[in-house]
């Protein structure tokens, strides 16, 4: 699977510079961390990668292909997916349908086939349904298949979001604070899922506040503060960097 490369990426909103000259790589088959205090620009970076914001300058490449000026749906089709800080599911749709929609970028049946119910569309629907059911079993969510996703408990909604991301099978998955509000057991379970995905070849970018969680999972960590990279390297080194400690705790 291709890796994701950011090169001197900057974003200004009017006079305010939210992200400036940020460069890093999310390699395949690994988990890369992106941390920093509130307002450091982490979510802005995610929004830049997914095409929700336009770059002010710099370049974003996926496997050598420039995706810096692509529309959100084009970025998604090329294989970059994300989860949201505040989980965003389709609240009225059932859990099963929320997972099936994850297969959208793999759909091959034409619009005409869908409109007139041709076999190409029908067999595809059956296939996606079976694969979604298998995912539900794997995440122990089979009994919620027909529940409207909006009514589920927080932890279960997270799992639905993860199943949707897995269904998309992206090359790069951006995780925006995936374990916020979870206890250590729940976070640990989700961490196992992330490691499983990474070992299947996916490149993950983990944006987190939970330092313990990041230290446990990531091979490399990048630290942002006020839109700039202030440190980068293996977590054991970065976490003891005085610059990082100052950014998080302030000067004594």
């Amino acid at each position: 699977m291709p890796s994701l490369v950011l090169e001197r990426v900057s974003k200004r909103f009017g006079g305010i510079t939210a992200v400036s000259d940020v460069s890093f790589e999310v390699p395949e088959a690994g988990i890369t961390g992106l941390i920093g205090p509130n307002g450091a620009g982490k979510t802005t970076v995610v929004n830049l990668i997914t095409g929700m914001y336009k770059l002010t300058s710099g370049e974003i490449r996926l496997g050598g292909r420039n995706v810096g000026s692509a529309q959100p749906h084009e970025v998604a089709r090329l294989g970059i997916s994300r989860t949201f800080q505040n989980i965003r599911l389709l609240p009225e749709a059932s859990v099963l349908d929320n997972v099936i929609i994850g297969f959208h970028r793999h759909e091959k049946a034409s619009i005409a086939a869908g409109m007139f119910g041709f076999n190409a569309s029908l067999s595809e629907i059956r296939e996606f349904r079976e694969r979604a059911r298998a995912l539900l079993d794997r995440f122990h969510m089979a009994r919620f298949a027909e529940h409207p996703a909006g009514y589920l408990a927080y932890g279960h909604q997270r799992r639905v979001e993860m199943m949707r991301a897995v269904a998309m099978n992206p090359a790069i998955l951006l995780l925006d604070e995936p374990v916020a509000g979870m206890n250590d057991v729940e976070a640990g379970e989700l961490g196992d899922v992330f490691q499983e995905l990474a070992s299947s070849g996916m490149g993950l970018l983990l944006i987190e506040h939970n330092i313990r969680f990041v230290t446990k999972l990531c091979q490399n960590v990048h630290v942002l503060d006020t839109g700039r990279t202030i440190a980068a390297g293996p977590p054991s080194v970065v976490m003891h960097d005085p610059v990082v400690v100052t950014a998080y705790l302030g000067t004594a």
Partner: protein
Amino acid sequence: MGIFEVYHPLFNFFLLNVGYAFSQQIVLRAGVFSVATGGFAALGAYCTAILVVDYQVGEFLALAASLALGMLTGLILSWPLARLRGVYQAIATLAFVQIVTALLLYAEDITGGAIGINHIPRLATTWQLLIAVAIVTYIIFSIGRSGIGRAFDAIRQDETVAGMLGVSIRRYHILAFVISGAIGGLFGGFHALLVYSIEPALFGFEFLAMVLTFIVLGGKGSVWGPIIGTAIIVSLPEIARPLAENRQMAQGILMMVMIAYLPNGVYDSLVSLIRQRRAAKWDRANQEKSHAVAGA
């Protein structure tokens, strides 16, 4: 046969409006607050009427022309509307309907102005309408279970998420407008071949409110919503005479009650109620099972 004879015109009227309801539903389902169905219907009706009356074109060719005109108008309309959302789409499409009715009024030489077109031969039969409704129902049903329906549902519920999933919002909005235009145009054509005479006022605000009521009442999530919603509105004046005399007011009150208490429409609310019941039953059964295991 006697009873059917009495209700025959009503049944035709019902079928015609089911068509309009589907034209309205498809855009709402895709998250587009369009009220353009009235405009599509007006164009379709005049297209068929003019072709049949002035140019002696055959019925089916005229209907096909109306369908194509609706499609084309939908395609063109989707372009300036791409950037608009929600209430702004409603205002812009309302303006579109106004432009169409104004043009029909001014182009007197072709459209007969305010008097409209009269003496249109009544060529449409109930069977033809029934077949047209069946085909449209099948297409809407197919869309609903295919990836297109899922893309529409995703866009309606959360555009950002839909984009993140790889759904091109632009592409699916165009598709919704084109389908809505095609259905609206076709049934506009049938309308002209059913009622002897048409005038611009037929497709004004009252029409638009009525078609919206079908969906608000029935629901926008499945093929049954428009059918049930239309059936209720069409049969209401027949059930009780006072309702017929105060038709507008009765419809208005019904709308307000629906929006306040069943915002998803009769059918969709029923479905989600059954779903929740079933889910609750599942939960209870599971709990009992785990208690039983713990007890043993």
